């Protein structure tokens, strides 16, 4: 649906151009929710603005729906932008217009719809975002969550194929954030709209996205399915972002792990394995004791996951590890040598992008 090829972007600075993005290759599939995460200054806002050409790339090409749009101008550019809705962190609503007026705005711009048709469409959009009773209020009379719902209704007015969300929940409290993210997922499900979501919060990615790209200092340092990137972060920037989301959730630094006796492993339970009582049984079968050193449990979208760092000691540690792997548990050895065992233990293939 969206493809960025070799994108670079620099801004004019006092001492020559300041690079903001460098060699970005990304592709977003039709109908998915794609997250772009990075700390502030990583270049994510610039990146998302390249998709609807609010920013022009210094180098590289932008494709939307298979069409090269990098230097679209005039009516072609406006048509492209109508097919891409955008939701902003600070809502950017027109304060002089009512809620209904704000949603009608993009429809009025096209000059293609009569008053009655606009009114009907606005009513349907407000019903979708649950703001029907507030149609005649002005934005200042609304709460932050309601304002963002107006922003979403407005972005959907021209029936876009793509919705860009630029930190759409960053100005909202946690509860409202949850409601807005649910609304975005519902829109994605019901309308099949492809969503590109920019955020600095790993939690937003975990709850909403199918795939994610991690942006650090203008480069994509890691990319993949959310399950993979969230549970097995490779790059330091990703690790930092995951830790921000879970300040004390299952992290053990290498030094602490080295001091422990036995074998330290990280077990990741996803899919069916997340619900089965596996650990105790396998420990018993192999006469192994285990201590849970750290852990985190939760959901990625609807899928449950559990991840523990466990120290294993006893008769057949290697056998226990093999047994866990056979039951669908992902086992990663934490430092040290691989213990001798009849069962061949494979290191997880390192997935580095």
């Amino acid at each position: 649906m969206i493809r960025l090829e070799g994108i670079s972007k620099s801004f004019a600075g006092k001492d020559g151009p300041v690079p903001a993005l460098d060699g970005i290759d990304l592709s977003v599939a039709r109908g998915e929710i794609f997250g772009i995460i990075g700390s502030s200054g990583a270049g994510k806002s610039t990146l998302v603005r390249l998709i609807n050409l609010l920013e022009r790339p210094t180098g590289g090409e932008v494709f939307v729906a298979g069409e090269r749009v990098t230097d679209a101008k005039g009516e072609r550019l406006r048509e492209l932008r109508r097919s891409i809705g955008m939701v902003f962190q600070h809502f950017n609503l027109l304060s002089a217009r009512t809620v209904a007026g704000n949603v009608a705005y993009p429809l009025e711009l096209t000059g293609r719809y009569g008053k009655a048709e606009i009114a009907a469409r606005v009513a349907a959009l407000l019903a979708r975002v649950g703001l029907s009773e507030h149609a005649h209020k002005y934005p200042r009379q609304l709460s932050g969550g309601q304002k963002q719902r107006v922003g979403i209704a407005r972005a959907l007015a021209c029936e876009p194929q793509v919705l860009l969300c630029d930190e759409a929940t960053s100005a909202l409290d946690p509860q409202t954030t949850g409601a807005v993210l649910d609304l975005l997922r519902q829109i994605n499900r019901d309308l099949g709209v492809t969503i590109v979501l920019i955020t600095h919060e790993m939690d937003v990615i975990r709850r909403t996205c199918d795939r994610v790209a991690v942006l650090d200092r203008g480069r994509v340092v890691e990319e993949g399915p959310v399950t993979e990137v969230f549970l097995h972060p490779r790059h330091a920037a990703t690790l930092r972002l995951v830790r921000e989301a879970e300040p004390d959730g299952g992290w053990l630094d290498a030094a602490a792990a080295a001091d422990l006796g036995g074998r330290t492993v990280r077990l990741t339970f996803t899919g069916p394995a997340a619900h089965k009582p596996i650990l105790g049984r396998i420990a018993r079968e192999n006469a192994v004791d285990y201590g849970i050193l750290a852990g985190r449990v939760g959901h990625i979208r609807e899928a449950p996951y559990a991840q523990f760092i466990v120290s294993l000691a006893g008769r057949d540690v290697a056998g226990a590890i093999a047994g866990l792997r056979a039951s669908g548990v992902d086992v990663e050895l934490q430092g040290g040598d691989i213990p001798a065992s009849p069962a061949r233990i494979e290191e997880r293939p390192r997935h580095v992008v």
Partner: protein
Amino acid sequence: MSFENIHWGDIGAALGQTLAMVGGALLLTVLVGLPLGILLFLTGRQQPFQAPVAYGGLSFVLNIIRSVPFIILLIVLMPVTILVTGTSLGIRGVIFPLVVGTSPFFARLVETALREVDRGIVEASLAMGASTTQTIFRAVLPEALPSLLAAVTVTAIVLVDYTAMSGAIGGGGLGDLAIRYGYHRFQTEIMLVCVAILIVFVQLIQASGNRLVAHFSRK
């Protein structure tokens, strides 16, 4: 001092002239200054049609006009005024220099008002597929409406001030009356009445301006 000698008819006529001058000049100032202000806004730094040379040039010209004291501008402009309106006297002769004098001021106020509109609103409008013209007329100007009304109010009051000065070169109006009778003929009471009327007039302009601004404020 005696108020019996006042020709209220003269004062009424002078008030009518002042109203005509302020009203006419205000209308034309808005018609000239608003586009100039929009042009300043659009060509300014970090704006859609950023054009440093055009902006600098326009800015320079407006600053020159603004640096000339209005009373001098009136005299300097006389030949042009006669060329444009056929006379340099009376209401007709005064409205032209008034518009030249206040338009640059109003244009600056418009520029400031438009710049204060949240950039995010411009960005959102463009992202929704609006052209620059649509963004200016359907988003930026309506958002800036309260500030623009405040700018019109301030400009109207400046015009009241300027019309009084234009009395000095035969423009008519309350200021003219005050100077001719009050100053040249030592009829202080006429000056007092004229000044009192001007004070009330200015207060009324400011009060109605404030009410309009409040009425259209949605923030």
